[in-house]
């Protein structure tokens, strides 16, 4: 029962504290009255009795305090008192408080936002069942160390059938098609994926409507079915459940809708609008161990290590390799956790951003710390007097810490509000971020922010609090305003803080400069063709409708002719994939004129299909030989053109013209083609090295490979203004045929570099903010020093010092911490540059240009920040400064 009693008393003490206080006074009064009555009964007259009783009672205030100190919750009362006191002091200097709160809010807001993103993207497991049991399996060729190669469908089939280390394995591949309806609805090109029937059960995903695929639907020649993503279900079918069981047309082929996936399922990419079964996307002869395009997800058995299971699969793969010597069949199988696979590309940039935001927060703390030291100096006397009157040092530190806590909490609240907005903005504007849908502020983020708030308070407050409540109370009290010595140590502290601040700023500036420079490199990277006033429009002819080379060719040529005659079009040409627009695909080949090299060493090059006008339209230079002609069509197509890289790599020191390439473009038997020309290199993907490329004529019209085309148009007018006329020409030829990726060449470049530009601009933003903070810090410290040294400067001038000498005195004082910080920061920047090497493009980690530029901008900023107080110092009138005492 004791706890009940204690709880009751605690409750009274907490919520009825006021009542209890007045009751205590009544208790004392009663005691006094009893004493008086007692005295009277002993024969004293009332007045005497009263005086005696009061004398005996002692100091009532002291008694009250002593009794109070026995109460519970005193600590709370102490904190409450500190809080009131702290907020009063802060309110007395609103300018200071507002600055400090804003600085902290920026730091905490940015940190919380980035933490939210990092946590959602990197740390939170995938939204699947037991996500840590999911691994991705890749093939690895021994000649390409550390590579992760996509899997061949035949390999996946054999792994799944013949190994038992994994609970199950599923595969998927990219796919896509033209979506149209039965009743002439608007055609649309959709990105899609093909998944094995067990993919969704391996991931542990249930459809919200209908079912997933059955094994029977996932075989060659199966009836066609489709599962819709939630976004397509909503956007195209307005969430109408009746679509289940109905047929939709993909590439003119009817498919039955069997299910709808949940809204949160956006693997592997939110652009995937529908899923079809895996195996039917292959022709029977293409299920081979040497055509690689699939991704394999495997689920580990309970208590089984990935290594053992992968070893079994790898052993099997080696057998497959031995059975297919001479073909590109990998020797080994490797795995990596699925989460790593998903976040791979953004991991380093995210960590870099997180570190830079941490740096910025640290700078913000140092700045507030610096401001507090300055304030502490101004309140030195007050603190000393309170110390002399018996205020314990702990109490004084506690009080100052409360102040920095108040600043941090206010800044934290403001920062969290900022971060809600910032996080939303980040999630929508960071185009390359995977799992962007998973980003939200949750409990952990709030706890993290709270921890950051307290850490900030501690960092910003402790140093100033300790320094101002030093033991030398008497010294401070004796300090006259004229003495200068007392301020030296505090100024040293502030200069040290400033040095740290500047060093961190320089590190940030250098990293930002490196990232920005590599972004500029990307932006201006030469695609190898004209990029100005070029529009690209993609389309794909469905194989079902365009089933003969004649039909494919007829469409391509008719479209070209129509587009070329549009006003404003200077040239138009066809290419399967425009420069900068991606990989498309590669093929292995041999060169009959060269003796066969090692069995596994396969020659490999990117393939592009073009029409004869392509190179001249995009001004890709002809280096040797000739272009295709209108004669290179249909079965008469016996020539290829190669890129410069191809010639350098496979025909070093030889004339490739007239030589042959034995290659199979369609995946069937190889055929020999004569090389008739060499053209300049183009870049297939910005940021990637140039690849050897082989061009064939699209006029071959093979429905299997020549049906996907990009029409590239050089415009004499604003290129995007041509997009509608071109689309009209397409629908005039085939109203069911949709076009997609209507982009100017500049937009293609922008898209490829968007994410880089994003992280580079964010880091640059942080760096600039830090630079401003450092400048404010420098300005603050110098202004303070000048005001402290006003009388000293006055004396110097009275003794004959020139104004220029005073100017130099102050500037040197300010620039010393800047110089030390700069040196430290440059060293740190160099280390950081080496760490982020992997995300730099065309920029050396120790790029002297960046280092010089950043050091220069810092010095300039520092000079401006110190010039103001320095000028103020040399304008001091000696007489006035001396009279100020």
């Amino acid at each position, binding site marked *: *029962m004791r706890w009940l009693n204690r709880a009751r008393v605690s409750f009274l003490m907490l919520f009825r504290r006021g009542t209890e206080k007045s009751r205590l006074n009544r208790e004392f009064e009663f*005691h006094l009255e009893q004493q008086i009555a007692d005295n009277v009964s002993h024969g004293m007259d009332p007045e005497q009795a009263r005086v005696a009783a009061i004398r005996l009672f002692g100091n009532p205030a002291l*008694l009250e305090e002593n*009794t109070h100190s026995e*109460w519970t919750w005193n600590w709370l009362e102490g904190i409450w008192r500190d809080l009131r006191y702290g907020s009063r002091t802060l309110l007395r200097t609103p300018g200071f408080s507002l600055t400090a709160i804003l600085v902290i809010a920026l730091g905490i807001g940015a940190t919380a936002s980035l933490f939210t993103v990092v946590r959602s993207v990197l740390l939170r497991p995938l939204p699947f069942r037991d996500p840590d049991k999911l691994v991705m399996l890749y093939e690895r060729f021994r000649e390409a160390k550390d590579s992760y190669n996509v899997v061949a469908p035949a390999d996946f089939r054999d792994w799944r059938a013949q190994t038992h280390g994994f609970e199950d394995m599923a595969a998927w591949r990219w796919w896509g098609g033209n979506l149209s309806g039965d009743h002439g609805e608007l055609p649309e090109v959709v990105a899609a994926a093909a998944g094995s029937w067990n993919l969704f059960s391996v991931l542990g995903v249930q459809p919200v409507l209908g079912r997933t695929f059955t094994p029977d639907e996932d075989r060659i020649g199966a009836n066609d079915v489709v599962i819709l993503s939630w976004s397509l279900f909503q956007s195209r079918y307005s969430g109408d459940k009746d679509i289940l069981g109905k047929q939709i047309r993909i590439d003119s082929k009817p498919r039955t809708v069997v299910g709808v996936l949940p809204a949160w399922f956006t693997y592997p990419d939110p652009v995937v609008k529908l899923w079809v079964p895996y195996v039917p996307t292959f022709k029977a002869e293409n299920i081979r161990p040497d055509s690689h395009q699939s991704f394999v997800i495997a689920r580990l058995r309970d208590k089984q290590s990935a290594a053992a299971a992968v070893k079994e699969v790898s052993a099997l793969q080696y057998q497959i390799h031995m059975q297919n010597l001479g073909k590109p069949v990998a020797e080994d199988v490797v795995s990596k956790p699925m989460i790593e696979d998903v976040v791979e590309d953004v991991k380093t940039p995210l960590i870099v951003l997180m570190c830079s935001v941490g740096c910025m927060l640290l700078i913000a703390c140092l700045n507030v710390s610096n401001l507090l030291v300055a304030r502490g100096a101004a309140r030195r006397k007050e603190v000393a007097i309170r110390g002399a009157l018996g205020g314990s040092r702990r109490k004084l530190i506690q009080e100052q810490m409360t102040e920095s806590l108040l600043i941090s909490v206010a800044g934290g609240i403001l920062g969290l509000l900022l971060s809600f907005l910032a996080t939303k903005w980040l999630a929508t504007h960071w185009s390359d971020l995977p799992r962007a849908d998973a980003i939200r502020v949750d409990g952990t983020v709030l706890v993290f922010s709270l921890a950051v708030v307290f850490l900030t308070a501690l960092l910003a407050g402790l140093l100033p609090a300790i320094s101002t409540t030093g033991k030398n109370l008497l010294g401070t009290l004796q300090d006259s305003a004229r003495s200068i010595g007392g301020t030296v140590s505090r100024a040293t502290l502030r200069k040290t803080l400033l040095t740290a601040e500047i060093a961190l700023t320089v590190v940030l500036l250098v990293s930002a400069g490196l990232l920005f420079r590599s972004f500029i490199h990307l932006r201006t990277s030469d695609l190898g063709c004209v990029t100005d006033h070029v529009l690209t429009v993609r389309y794909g002819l469905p194989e079902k409708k365009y089933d003969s080379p004649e039909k494919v060719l007829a469409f391509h040529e008719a479209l070209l002719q129509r587009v070329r005659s549009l006003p404003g079009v200077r040239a138009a040409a066809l290419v399967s994939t425009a420069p900068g627009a991606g990989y498309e695909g590669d093929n292995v080949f041999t060169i009959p004129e060269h003796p066969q090299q090692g069995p596994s060493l396969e020659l490999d090059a990117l393939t592009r299909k073009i029409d004869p006008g392509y190179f001249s339209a995009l001004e890709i230079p002809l280096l040797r030989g000739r272009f295709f002609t209108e004669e290179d069509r249909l079965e008469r197509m016996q020539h290829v053109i190669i890129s410069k890289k191809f010639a350098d790599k496979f025909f070093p020191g030889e004339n490739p013209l007239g030589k042959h390439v034995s290659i199979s473009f369609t995946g069937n038997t190889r055929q020999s083609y004569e090389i008739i020309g060499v053209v300049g290199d183009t870049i297939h993907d910005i940021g990637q090295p140039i690849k050897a490329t082989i061009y064939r004529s699209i006029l071959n019209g093979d429905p299997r490979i020549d049906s996907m085309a990009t029409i590239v148009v050089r415009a004499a007018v604003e290129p995007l203004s041509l997009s509608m006329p071109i689309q009209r020409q397409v629908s005039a030829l085939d109203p069911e045929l949709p076009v997609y990726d209507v982009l100017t060449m500049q937009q293609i470049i922008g898209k490829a570099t968007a994410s880089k530009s994003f992280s580079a601009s964010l880091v640059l933003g942080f760096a600039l903010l830090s630079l401003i903070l450092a400048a404010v810090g420098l300005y603050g410290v110098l202004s303070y020093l000048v005001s402290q040294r006003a009388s000293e400067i006055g004396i110097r001038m009275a003794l004959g010092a020139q104004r220029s000498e005073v100017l130099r005195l102050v500037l040197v004082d300010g620039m010393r911490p800047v110089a030390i910080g700069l040196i430290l920061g440059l060293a740190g920047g160099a280390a950081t540059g080496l760490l982020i090497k992997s995300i730099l493009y065309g920029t050396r980690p120790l790029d002297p240009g960046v280092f010089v530029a950043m050091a220069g901008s810092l010095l300039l900023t520092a000079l401006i920040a110190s010039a103001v107080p320095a000028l103020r110092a040399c304008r001091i009138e000696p007489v006035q400064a001396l009279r100020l005492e």
Partner: protein
Amino acid sequence: MGKPNDLVQGTLDLLILKTLSLDPKHGWAIAKRIEQISNDVLQVQQGSLYPALHRLEQQGWIRGKWTESETGREVKFYSLTSAGLARLEKEKESWKRLSAAIDLVVDSL
């Protein structure tokens, strides 16, 4: 009467608990009672009485209750709780041990 003896550290709690073990009392009565029983040897100062009472109350050994006194005004009466009774026994034990130990030391010289 000379200077009142300072109470041995920690014995005030024991005295209060013991005094309250008979019947509930208010603060003044507790002090008075201790003086009477000890023949005015032990003088309880208000300066230590009230802090001690409030400490014991916060600890849950005793319980304060505001009731009307004979003269018709509200007075805080303290009574012993059951936990306080147990506490009293323990305090007594340790006091006896302590005083016996002190006796041994004092008598041996």
